[in-house]
């Protein structure tokens, strides 16, 4: 049997088997030190080398080049995780292609061997290949030109700042609050003591749970439309807005902010954002128009209790600062 064909089959069938049967085994939900996608990839490469060695296969250099290129493509497209954006993918593949070319042209012999079929097609020794190439290539080029001239429009990309710089003070309902030193007046106890307490049921037993219940009530009358019943920013109206509402479950939002910062954001909303780094385009209402000061504080208390996050503190007790 033709050894080139055997080599080709080893590659193609091997890849199919590895990708469909073995890859799922190596991508479990819990990634282990052995059961992970990169070990899988190394195993696949090892399989190729070992089978070629044992079967003493020596495919022509153009096919070897194809294998090397294909392995790179497979890695960047399917193995590498998380998936990379296509612009990056193209950059990587350009570099990988250059590498493959270097591999092919490593010495004059391999390079000549690689060139041989190409030259034969050009001068017409492979008549059919020549005809197909000479007709197909100009059509392809013409088509690509058409595609590139055809006007197409993508919505403009808008960059934005995620966390605005807070002001030193904020004035809500006629009272000025310095953001550095204002604490939530309803945080009357350590939050973790109430992990297994219930709103409504324990509202009469603990002052803390009374405030949480009141804060939750306000949240579910006003805020859940955008920030969601799960506080994950996926409320009924969330899909309408751009940027989308904040996700409080995410460690990048309330978990890394001071309560006073949130007090300022809730009170002033989108219109109260500082001028620098505009446009903000935030749909967040200025809640001071609808809620009393203590209601805002209670909502904030509730958000931390519900998500289990602790507000960031700047002070002697805080080490994060």
């Amino acid at each position, binding site marked *: 049997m033709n050894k080139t064909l055997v080599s080709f089959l080893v590659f193609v069938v091997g890849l199919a088997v590895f990708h469909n049967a073995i890859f799922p085994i190596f991508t479990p939900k819990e990634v282990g030190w052995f059961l992970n996608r990169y070990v899988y990839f190394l195993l696949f490469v090892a399989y190729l080398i070992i089978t070629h060695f044992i079967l003493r296969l020596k495919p022509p250099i153009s096919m070897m080049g194809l294998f090397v290129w294909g392995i790179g493509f497979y890695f960047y497209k399917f193995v590498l995780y998380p998936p990379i954006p296509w612009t990056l993918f193209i950059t990587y593949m350009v570099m990988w292609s250059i590498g493959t070319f270097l591999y092919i042209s490593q010495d004059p012999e391999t390079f000549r061997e690689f060139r041989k079929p190409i030259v034969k097609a*050009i001068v017409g020794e492979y008549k059919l290949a020549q005809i197909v190439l000479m007709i197909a*290539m100009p*059509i392809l080029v013409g088509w690509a030109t058409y595609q590139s001239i055809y006007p197409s429009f993508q919505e403009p990309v808008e960059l934005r700042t995620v966390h605005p710089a807070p002001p030193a003070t904020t004035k809500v309902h006629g009272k000025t609050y310095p953001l550095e030193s204002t604490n939530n007046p309803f945080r009357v106890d350590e939050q973790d003591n109430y992990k297994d307490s219930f*709103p409504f049921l324990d509202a009469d037993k603990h002052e803390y749970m009374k405030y949480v219940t009141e804060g939750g009530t306000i*949240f579910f009358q006003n805020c859940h439309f955008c920030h969601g019943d799960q506080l994950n920013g996926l409320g009924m109206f969330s899909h309408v807005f*751009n940027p989308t509402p904040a996700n409080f479950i995410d460690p990048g939002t309330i978990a890394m902010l001071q309560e006073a910062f949130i007090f300022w954001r809730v009170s002033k909303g989108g219109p109260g954002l500082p001028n620098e780094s505009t446009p903000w385009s935030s749909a967040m209402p*200025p809640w001071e128009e609808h809620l009393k000061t203590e209601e805002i504080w209670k909502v904030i208390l509730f958000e931390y209790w519900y998500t289990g996050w602790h507000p960031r503190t700047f002070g002697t007790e805080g080490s994060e600062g």
Partner: protein
Amino acid sequence: MTNNNYIKRLILSFLAMAMIMLPGTALAAGVPDPINKDMLESGKKVYFKRCVWCHGVEGGGDGPAADRLFTRPRNFIQGTFKIRWTDSGELPLDINLINTVKNGLQGSAMPAWGEFLSKDEILSVVQFVKSLVQDRDFSDEDEEVNNVITGVDADLGDSGKGPLGDPPWAETKGPYHLGIPQEHVDAGKELFMKNKCWECHGGEGRGDGNPTMKDDWGFPIVAANWQQCWNHRGARRDVYNPFVIARAISTGLNGTPMPNFREQLTGPERWQVAAFVNSLCPRKKIDALTLKPIPDFLIQSVYTEGQVVPKIDDPSWQSSDTDDRIVSATEELKENPKRHHIAMAGQITRGKRNFDPKADNLWVTTRWSAEEQAVYYLVEYDQRFMSADPEYPDAVAIQWPAKLQDLFGAEKPYFIYGDSKKPVDIWKASFMAKDYSATNAPNEKGYQLDMSVKEFVGNGFDALSDKESEAKVEIVDSIYHQGRVKVMFKRSLKTEGEFDVQIPSEQFIPVSFFQWSGRDKEHDEHMAISTWYYTILKPALPASLYYMPPIIAAVFICFQGWLVWMTKRTRKMYDEGKMRRDELPK
């Protein structure tokens, strides 16, 4: 150990049920899944942290959120559940409730908890919810449940009343469930006419049939809009699956006026009605998290040779609601403008807030003409019922930055009525349907609209003023047809007014939309809003599109000829010994 006992009991009861069913002749019904008392304590914990806010302390559907929600949260006390596999009026199976909690109820405030709560938490909260049912008892021996969908627990005798069974077509394709043979869709349409589904759901299924319906608790309720299947409560995150409809027809929706149709329709016929209903829903890419169609953030206005035909019915304005990346557009629609999907929400930011907007989305199609120097925007939306009160007309508006030339980069005015530094230009069309009554039977011709247009300048939420200059925006055509409002705006690209937006071509222009439902007395800031979108007046196709590709191809052919000539020449030179080949190492 109690747990072990429970499992034993469960297995025994299954065996017993299987024994009863084996003969298959008797009309045997199952009993409800009893409450698992061991799970109540943990279920209560979940309930009082996650569910109580909407469903209330006693499960009466009266939590703090309830009054601002339409549809209201479920009242558990009567044991009335909409999405089930069991017969009308019967209690649900555990699996039904579990699926509801897991996948949420689309188009309502009930989110999908499947990724948020653990499996055990979901199982236990379902048991707790069952314990909140007061008027009925899951362990009552007189309670019957007949599984009319899969028929696992019951044999309902003759085929008309039997389980739903498999659809009469082979599999559907992909996440959009395409490929149901047209004959089934057509048969479904006939059954839809015959069974008078339109009495509630309207002539084209937009839920515009009956304005007077109430649910079991006396709250107003509307029929589902089949053209927005992503809002079907029982969609289970598989929006386009016809099973959703087939199940609703088979079981009815408890607590609502929706009956089951098992007397009237056999299993395969129910599937055919489902096929028809399903075919009405436009295929859009659905966001996996919000479960709504992904909005088309760029509204592309198509360049029109000569003049635009200002008629909604004209072929040049026809387009499909379906995304052409999912089902490619037919040949005659290919050059037409796309219908862009605009997501709408209630205005809950300033002044009188709107927590229950009646329009979930708008569709916008647009053309412009260089010859006329004018742009046309066709705005459409589904509205079940129109206003009958001239004090509260229906209305829809387009908002633009009034001083586009002064905006820098991505800067935009505030999205509700602009701000003090960046004014907005608002084109508002207000209208009443002529000779219309909400209780009319479906009218194929539709209703003409009594139209008035006004232009406003917005300089902030509380600084909205009538433009003093004469209105330059025209409504060139409009109609209210089978539950859909269609309004075509026209304006010249350039106008005189100080606060008129001057519309350039080939430039991204921010644009947003407002909508008022007169029947719900929406007016002023009590409205539905969108965020800022972009629109662009696309240029005519460049002439170079037709001559450049052949030129480049010809150049490439020359290059190929040169390459062949060069290669042959080099060969010849080698052969004649004029040049030496690169030598290989020995």
